[in-house]
């Protein structure tokens, strides 16, 4: 009787151990791969599209804002456009921190052509220190929800 038990123990182990390892792989698989983060996916698409649009029309905007005493584009709109673009970039960095473009749109590195286009509106440097618009905190919460 005791002999049978001794024999079956290693046999059980040899079956159980691969399964243990295998399910550990599955767990990490769930953590890293099996996720569809709808918000990140959408933001990752629409914000770069917006920045490209902005880049394409920035020269025209600048010209239109200087067309005569009553310009087609009031300068105030360019200022708000600047602010809104910052919101877009904050949103992008918060939702898509792993994205390839992310480093380029980070608030402190305005050396990307697209963002430089916006800055070519020669806004005073003091304006670039916008206050936190609330996205960062919201997004930290969002991120902590699904970080493995």
């Amino acid at each position: 009787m005791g002999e049978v038990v001794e024999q079956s123990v290693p046999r059980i182990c040899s079956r159980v151990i691969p399964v243990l390892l295998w399910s550990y792989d599955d767990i990490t698989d769930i953590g890293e791969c099996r996720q569809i983060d709808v918000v990140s996916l959408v933001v990752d698409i629409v914000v770069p599209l917006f920045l490209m649009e902005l880049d394409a029309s920035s020269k025209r905007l600048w010209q239109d804002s200087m067309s005569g005493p009553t310009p087609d584009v009031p300068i105030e709109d360019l200022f708000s456009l600047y602010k809104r673009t910052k919101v877009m970039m904050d949103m992008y960095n918060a939702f898509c921190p792993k994205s390839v473009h992310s480093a380029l749109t980070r608030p402190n590195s305005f050396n990307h052509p697209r963002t430089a286009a916006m800055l070519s509106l020669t806004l005073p440097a003091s304006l670039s220190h916008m206050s936190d618009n609330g996205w960062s905190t919201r997004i930290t919460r969002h991120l902590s929800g699904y970080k493995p």
Partner: protein
Amino acid sequence: MFGSLYSVFLGAIYQALEAVPQVKASDIKPYLQILGSIQDNRLLQRFEVDIQARIEDVKEQVKISADAGYHKTFKELESRPGVNRALPLLLMTDEIEKWAKSLNKAFPESVLG
């Protein structure tokens, strides 16, 4: 059987997500609950190797919908009368923020996460 069930439901989600970025959580929630309980079953991971590819399909679908949604909205904004070229861009940022907010609310955790 689990594998094919899962595929059927992924297909359904695929369709529902075409409404992105204006998709409502209530349109997808029932699917997600079912998907979640199927995915909890380890049998699936053992036998269904194809699932990862389907998930990539769904991700791709979300991106395509987002792209189409952006262009549709911007076209609408741009075709409004007026000489102010900054206005459509400004309104677009509002739209994008609205989408992000509602999606963030609708999907506080990753789908299938």
